[in-house]
């Protein structure tokens, strides 16, 4: 029982990341009708927003003090992070909290990147075949990841968890189990709650704002909305920006769990496509549900008991589910009837 609960919890944070990326993919597909293979790259760019911010605030001034000698007998180098020079102790706190702070940097950056991408390239592909959309966004994804590689190098750059939330949260104690029987790393819990928060915000935005209502109407029937004299294109552009922000934030907060590397976008993209397909192309609740479902299933499949019965299942479970869903129920768990069928 504990083991099952533990796997359930383990799947939640990864599931959260899948859900956030799949949500953006679905928004873009639903509004613009574009299959965006560069969406994973946006997740990766978000992660590198965190890296950038950390590198900026940990820039150091080096003062060589000839009066003092180091243990090696050479003049002592005193390194002080700029943030500390400027803000004193508060600067040290800033450095400690660099990951959550990066959200502030990531929101405008990702919004700009998203809008630039849509206006610059994707807009020219609305009327072109899906194959060409796939190809151009695929190329774009390669460009983005290679630019990141050129700037930040090929190796993963690990990002620390703020010291206050390191360690684990004793879930077992809450459920009346023995203390320490079932613990869950604090940051994973935070990531899960964070993803729920973002998902809630996106749904609330779509449901309760006029902007969101127009976008939803546009997703249902673009032409009619266009006939009402509403400039749906501009709203869709902003929607693309929002999808980019969602993916970016998912990336920022994921950095302590997976040290950012330039190719993580593609790794997550392939999985997120599977998530979208399982959830149902064009269905936002489907994307979210399937994200968590697949995260949890993947976590179960990597239990050693399961792997003993079916070797290698942890490696292929997600793809296997996608294949079965596509063949048996092509519109996915929650897809609209007739959506992309046949």
């Amino acid at each position, binding site marked *: 029982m504990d083991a099952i609960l533990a796997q359930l919890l383990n799947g939640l944070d990864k599931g959260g990341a899948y859900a956030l990326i799949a949500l953006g993919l679905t928004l873009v597909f639903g509004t613009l009708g574009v*299959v965006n293979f560069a969406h994973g790259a946006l997740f990766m760019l978000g992660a590198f927003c965190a890296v950038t911010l950390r590198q900026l605030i940990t820039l150091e001034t080096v003062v060589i003090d000839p009066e003092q000698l180091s243990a090696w007998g050479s003049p002592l180098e005193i390194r002080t992070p700029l943030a500390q020079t400027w803000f004193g102790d508060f600067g040290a706190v800033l450095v400690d909290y660099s990951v959550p702070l990066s959200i502030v940097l990531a929101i405008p950056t990702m919004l700009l990147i998203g809008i630039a991408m849509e206006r610059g*390239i994707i807009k*020219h592909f609305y009327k072109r075949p*899906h*194959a*060409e959309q*796939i*190809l*151009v966004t*695929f*190329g*774009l*994804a*390669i*460009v983005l*990841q*290679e*630019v990141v*590689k*050129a700037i930040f190098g*090929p190796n993963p750059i690990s990002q620390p968890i703020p010291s206050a939330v390191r360690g684990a949260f004793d879930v077992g104690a809450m459920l009346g189990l023995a203390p320490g029987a079932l613990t869950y790393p604090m940051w994973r819990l935070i990531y899960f709650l964070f993803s729920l928060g973002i998902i809630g915000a996106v749904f609330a935005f779509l449901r309760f704002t006029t902007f969101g209502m127009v976008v939803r109407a546009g997703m249902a029937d673009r032409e009619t909305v266009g006939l009402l004299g509403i400039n749906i294109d501009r709203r869709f552009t902003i929607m693309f920006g929002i999808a980019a922000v969602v993916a970016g934030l998912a990336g920022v907060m994921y950095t302590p769990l997976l040290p950012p590397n330039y190719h993580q976008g*593609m790794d997550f993209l*392939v999985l997120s*496509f*599977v998530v979208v*397909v399982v959830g149902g192309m064009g269905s936002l609740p489907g994307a979210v549900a399937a994200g968590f479902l697949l995260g949890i299933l993947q976590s179960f499949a990597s239990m050693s008991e399961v792997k003993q019965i079916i*070797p*290698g299942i942890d*490696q*292929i479970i997600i*793809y*296997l589910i*996608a*294949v079965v869903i*596509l*063949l048996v129920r*092509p519109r996915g768990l929650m897809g609209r009837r007739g959506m*992309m069928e*046949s």
Partner: protein
Amino acid sequence: MTLFALSRRDLAVFAVFAVVVLAMPFWLQPLGAAYPALMQKFVISAIFAIGFNILFGLTGYLSFGHAAFLGVGSYTAVWSFKLLTMDAIPAIFFAVLVSGLFALVIGYLSLRRSGIYFSILTLAFAQMCYNLAYSVLTPITNGETSLQLTLSDPRLIDTALAPRPAGLPSASLFGHSFSGLEGFYFCAVVLLIAFFVTQKIFASPFGMMLRAIKSNQTRMTYTGFNTRPYTLTAFVISGMFAGLAGALFAITDPLAGTERMQWTASGEVVLMTILGGVGTLIGPVIGAWFIEYFENIFSAFNESVVHAFFSFLPAEIADPVALVASKFVGEGWQLTLGLLFVLVVVFLPGGIMEGVRRIGSLFGRRGTPVSPGAARAQPAE
């Protein structure tokens, strides 16, 4: 002999193509690419690309999983070396057979959907193959360390015919082991055969049916065609071409690694086909050569070469220019590749072949013929 029949124009194309391929060691000399390892890559990638084009270019199905068949071909060929013989023919035979079977199963399932769903399905199957090769199938694939020949391989047929050689053997053809330039010519002949088969497919009624399926599947079904066996045949043929390419990679260098199956390899063959010209006969070959050549040239560049190139500029300008430019070469070659991909899809969806046609129609009057009817005024509708 209908088996070898082709129109005079096609035969001329084949003859020119054969001369170009077989003369590679000569015309690649001034380009600095006339060494066997690279020329082998040119030829093998061309096979991979023309096979892929039969599915994508002719039939209109965009697969993102063809690297899986390339990998399967390589593994099968190496196992044929290890278990049976170093002869290239059985290796090719088994590789094509096994990759064809894989393609049959994956194609049967994937082709039940079309459009992006087909692309995602092939991607999912290829990722499954890759992940399995990397993990549970390690006894067969040797995982990360790649499958290689060892001194203790049984090589049943070879050892029955002759005593074991001292070192690791290399691939052979009817007892004559070859390497270097001979290896290139072996691959070149295989390419010519593959190219001829492709020409036959393009010119045949079967090829016309595939084109018609790409053009309008609804009309095909109402015209009395059962389209699924057609698309499946195209899928299996292109999977077998990929397996053949994989086998040739293993023949020129008896090694099979998982990286050959990664989805980036699938992406590369898509790019080769697009860059050269989707659906054209020669386009994919040109695309493959273009990419392999520039990959080789660009990735060999390093910062000092770039600096030397820009040294005619004053230092204040040269340094930053060289710094930026150096990001596009060497390790950064992939960046150039990605940019090229975007630019081609945006500006030249027909690839190099379309570019050539456009330039051709600028100079000569040999562009698309305008039939007399086209000029006739059409009644308003």
